[in-house]
């Protein structure tokens, strides 16, 4: 078997195992998070009979493993359960919100790539005062909590400037993009700083590496040294960490979503947990886990592709 296919299969196996274990952990832990009767009674004052009926109907008294098994088998048939609160298919609830989170994450990723990777590259290449400035800014950026940035932005733009909307997701299209700018900025600040550093760090490591010395002494033009030897060689590490960061953004977006009133999956999770809407909490958590694991694996694979020497070399862990 080809090494590439083998690695892919191994990866896939590890990925599925991780997902499976995580689903067990999450499924059973979520059951501890609250009593869903209020949610299930749908606003009505439940009588004891109604409560009994609900417990029976939703198998609330079955042992955890039995409920997990039921859930798993129906999930394989495409049925992910129904929201206790909204009484609708969980997927119809999650899908449109996922789109919003996805869009938010995409805008954020754009910011991270442009400003994070960009400033890291500039800092590494220019050095000197530019490097110091970027360093100070990123130090500050890494000390700024997302929600503080959010509050600050709301304050500035709602009170004073009014250039960007600070609430809601707007309508699809340009309006949406317009609405996502500030949430994305608040979400991005910390990560821009972080990625900037990682980028700078790995570029500088490459810049100082011996093979770059070789290229220099051979008179290779600066631009080519940077593009072909420095950036290209640093990119697996930058990519791997950017990948992990982006994968984590889907969960980290919760704060920006709450602060800017976006209806994404992060705010849905917080809300659903407050209302003990267990199927939603379960699905959203698992969705987050899946995204994280898959994106991470994808980033790994991609950096493996960039790095021909690593094919089949990395351990699965």
């Amino acid at each position, binding site marked *: 078997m080809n090494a590439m296919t083998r690695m892919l299969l191994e990866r896939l196996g590890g990925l599925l*195992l*991780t*997902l499976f*274990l*995580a689903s067990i*952990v*999450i499924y059973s*832990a*979520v059951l*501890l*998070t609250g009593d869903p009767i209020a949610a299930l009674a749908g606003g009505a004052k439940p009588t004891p009979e109604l409560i009994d009926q609900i417990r029976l109907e939703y198998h609330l008294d079955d042992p955890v493993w039995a409920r997990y098994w039921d859930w798993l088998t129906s999930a394989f048939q495409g049925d992910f359960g129904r929201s206790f609160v909204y009484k609708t298919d969980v997927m119809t609830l999650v899908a449109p919100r996922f789109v919003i989170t996805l869009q938010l994450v995409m805008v954020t990723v754009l910011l991270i790539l442009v400003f994070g990777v960009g400033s890291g590259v500039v800092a590494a290449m220019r050095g000197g005062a530019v*490097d*110091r400035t*970027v*360093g100070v800014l990123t*130090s*500050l950026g*890494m*000390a700024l*909590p*997302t*929600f*503080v940035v959010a*509050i600050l932005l*709301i*304050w500035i733009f*709602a009170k004073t400037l009014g250039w960007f909307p600070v609430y809601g997701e707007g309508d699809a299209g340009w309006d949406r993009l317009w609405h996502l700018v500030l949430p994305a900025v608040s979400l991005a600040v*910390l*990560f821009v700083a*972080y990625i900037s*550093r*990682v*980028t*700078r*760090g*790995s570029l*500088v*490591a490459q810049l100082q590496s011996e093979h770059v010395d070789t290229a220099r002494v051979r008179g290779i033009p600066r631009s080519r040294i940077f593009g072909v030897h420095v950036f290209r060689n640093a990119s697996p*590490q930058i990519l791997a*960490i950017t990948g*992990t*960061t982006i994968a*984590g953004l*889907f*969960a*980290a977006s*919760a*704060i920006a979503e*709450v602060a800017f009133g976006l209806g994404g999956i992060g705010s849905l*999770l*917080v809300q659903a*947990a407050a209302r003990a809407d267990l199927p939603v*909490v379960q699905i959203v*958590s698992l969705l*987050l*886990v899946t995204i*994280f*694991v898959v994106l*991470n694996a994808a980033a790994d694979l991609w950096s493996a592709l960039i790095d021909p020497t690593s094919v089949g070399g990395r351990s699965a*862990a």
Partner: protein
Amino acid sequence: MSVVQIANGAVPAVARRAAKRDWVFRIALIVFGVIAVLAAIGPWIAPYDPTELYVGPVNGASSLAHPLGTDDVGRDILSRVLVGAGASVFAPIGVVLLSTLAGVALALAAAWFGGWVSGGIARLIDVIFAIPGIVIAVLAVAVFGKGLLAPVVALSIAYIPVVARLVRTAASRELGKPYTAALRVQGVSSPAICFRHLVPALVPVVAAQTAIGFGYAMLDLSAISYLGLGQQPPAPDWGSMIAAGQAGLLSGAFEQSVYPAILVVVTVLAVGVIGARVTTWAEEKER
């Protein structure tokens, strides 16, 4: 909330250089020292009872009686900031301690036993790593109830993979060095190798990680407070103060949010500089 993985190069060279320039490091150390001391003695030096209402006007501005103003129920913000420092500074320390202990234990077990133990631990760590911090926080609040314990436990768990991976790498590197083989050949017992040689060797790495982890824990804990999953009122902590003051911010009463926010940022910055210094120092020791 975000759990940022500590990666190579995450400590900026600038901070390192800054850390080498002693005065920056010293300032950071002094700032953190002052904050830590205030956190420890805050309740005794607070001019007012931090939970007492109407010691001043509602949303009062800075004045002689209330240097940092008063909040939306007329409590003295200075007192709240001082008393809140305890939870805000010591909770991240708790997170760092718990996650470090657990992470180091797991990593050592993995590095030491290898084989299926290592495989199992790696899998466990993968699983934890895959579950977002916010999900762990939501679940932990359900299990431990509200208060400081849940978020501390949640973050400790969320940080385990970062610590464990780091330590595991360092431990295998250390175990791979010829001197451990030499110790075995000398007949030194395994526990002795582990505790007399391996553990001390990991101290600098862990110390550097601890400083960095503290900053992240502080940010994440305040974010958890912001989402309403943290400290129980009326006990103050910086994160919930920022969140509570958000409404006032829009109507011009910035004091309640801004001061704790500045403190969070300053503390994290100071710890960042200290962490960079410790890292440099650890790296120098490595050579």
